[in-house]
């Protein structure tokens, strides 16, 4: 009888322990996924917001955009006195199950710049589970969606970022999603 009670107590105890462990693991997995997404969305938003023409307005700040890839020009210089942009070329793309960021540096003293090869990719989110859902979608100033890949990137005024990352809920594989719309500030109206 005592053994039975002790076993029941032990089972309850271990169940409680393992469910707590599961909850902790779930929490950790979800927090990691959410933090990764949050960082990626913040970085993407910042780069898109400040995307600037690399050649004084001949081309727009976004070089190309399709459902899984985005190339923008952005100058990270924060010096208020540096008023002429010399932007980096930044590529975000889906690489397997990873969202990666790659950077090419400008060569030359004045526009039009040529660019170095892209740096090794930095992983922002993993695993990405967007499936058929586009990571990037472009819209005009009037809010009309532009077909992907966007033929005339000058028409892009807003970019919708939608990232779906894999996570664990207990032993089950689930997903978490973060989405935002970013309005480009340096778009030419005409």
């Amino acid at each position, binding site marked *: 009888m005592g053994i039975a009670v*002790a076993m029941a107590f032990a089972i309850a*105890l271990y169940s409680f322990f393992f469910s707590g462990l599961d909850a*902790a693991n779930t*929490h950790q997995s979800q927090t990691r996924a959410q933090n990764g997404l949050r960082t990626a969305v913040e970085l993407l938003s910042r780069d898109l917001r400040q995307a600037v023409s690399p050649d004084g307005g*001949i081309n727009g700040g976004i070089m190309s955009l399709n459902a899984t890839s985005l190339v923008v020009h952005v100058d990270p210089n*924060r010096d208020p006195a540096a008023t002429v942009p010399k932007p980096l070329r930044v590529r975000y793309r889906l690489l397997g199950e990873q969202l990666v960021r790659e950077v090419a540096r400008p060569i030359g003293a004045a526009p039009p710049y040529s660019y170095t090869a892209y740096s090794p990719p930095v992983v922002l989110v993993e695993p990405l589970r967007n499936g058929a859902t586009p990571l990037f979608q472009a819209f005009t*100033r009037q809010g009309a969606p532009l077909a992907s890949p966007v033929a005339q990137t*000058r028409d892009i005024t807003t970019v919708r970022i939608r990232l779906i990352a894999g996570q664990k809920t207990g032993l089950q594989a689930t997903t978490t999603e973060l989405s935002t719309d970013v309005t480009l500030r340096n778009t030419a109206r*005409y």
Partner: protein
Amino acid sequence: MSRFGTRPGTRRQRGATLPAVLGLTAALAITVAVSLTVARGGVTSAAHLGRADIAIQAADAGVNRYISRLVEDPRYYDRWVDQAEDPRVDPAGVVHPPGSPWIPGTPWTYVGPPQTQIPLQDARFGSATYSLRISPPTVGSDIVTVQAQARVDAAGPRPQVRTVQAQIAPVSIADFQMISNKEIKYGSAATTTGKLYSAVSVNHLGVATAPVFAQQKVCSEPTTVECGSHYYGSDVFRAGAYDSASTPSFSDKFPTPIDFSQFTRSVNDLRDAAQHGGVYRNNPSVTAWLVQFRSDGTMRIHRATSLKIDQALSSLSCPEIVPVPENGAVFFEQPVIVSDGSSLVDACGGRGPRDSVVDGRVTIATPGNLYIGGNIAYETSGDDVLGLIATQSIIFTQYTPRDTTVRAATLAQNGQWITSLTSYDGKHESLTYIGSQTTNQGGYASMFRTRTYGYDEVLQFLRPPFYPIIEGSWENRYWREVRAPS
């Protein structure tokens, strides 16, 4: 044996359950604590990002507030210290608080960290406020620089401060290679590198590397001038074409089509500036004025007589030599001729031709026709710029050289952009025009056997003084986050 005595065997139990329970509970407690700490970190991080986003939005609101002021009054910065602006300090050291009027032309500085704080909202992440600092355009530039610093939850334990710097400028008509109230057609040999605008249609048989806007139709049809259908192929229109049927449409890009009558304001401003520090001439006895720009930063001004200004000049007075004015404004109440390709001798014995080399940033305007009589070049590309504004027509004369090259931004506000003759006369082989053309009634240059039109990219950032802007077109040229001012 006592009733309450120890039962046989129990003495061997060592009380292992309690330590096990305590151990497991402790392990679980640690796990839960770590988990809660991580979760709390996530929440804190999310709140931090939320505040940062609000700070950016508040700073952006400040920039947009100032843009709206400039749309109402393009020289607002020169007339008022904005309510959201930090106090300005004039050269005498006098501090001017927000909301006070400003004496135009007076430079200013700011002292210390941002002081004015305009509240924007007081929501979940604490109150958001912003302050502005303005830098006026430098000489020859239109760019007003607005620096907006925003604070969120300034009184809280983790305030967020973000600063945005925006260079804002109006869109000038010189940002376009061609603006016409009539249909435009380019031949198969034409490659246009600047933006094109027509209030009717653009029929382009060559290649357009910059966007094309037509209120009705854009096409590529060899047999007609006006378009019969719509065509947007990237083989012709590399940077997009927008008309009544495209997405986005012409009206999406231009909710209000360009109104040529609005350019009168620029002409009046230019006349006013010419009378106050510029070059202004009004002599009703003069048939026309001939201007030749010199590479030393001066202009030679002759009084010209002629029976038909577009055909030949009869006589020229001795030249008056004046420096290109600092404010860039030159206004003649009578018709004006720029450059002279003839060999006419003036009253002082000076012989033509009188090609122009512009050293400076200058715009000439006249209420009549403006004639181009010879070559026009710039002394330093990227530093010099010439605008030519005729309230009536821009006309290339018959005494232009056999091979004529002209670099300028030109506007025929009510008339045409034409050559004196409507067909090749055997004396004019080529016209190379580099710049921007704006014409109300269209035009032609068929007096020249070959015509080459190119856009001057310099006009994208160097607007000729007082050259018209498109109404309400102030926009960000370069918006970015910067370090906060100390």
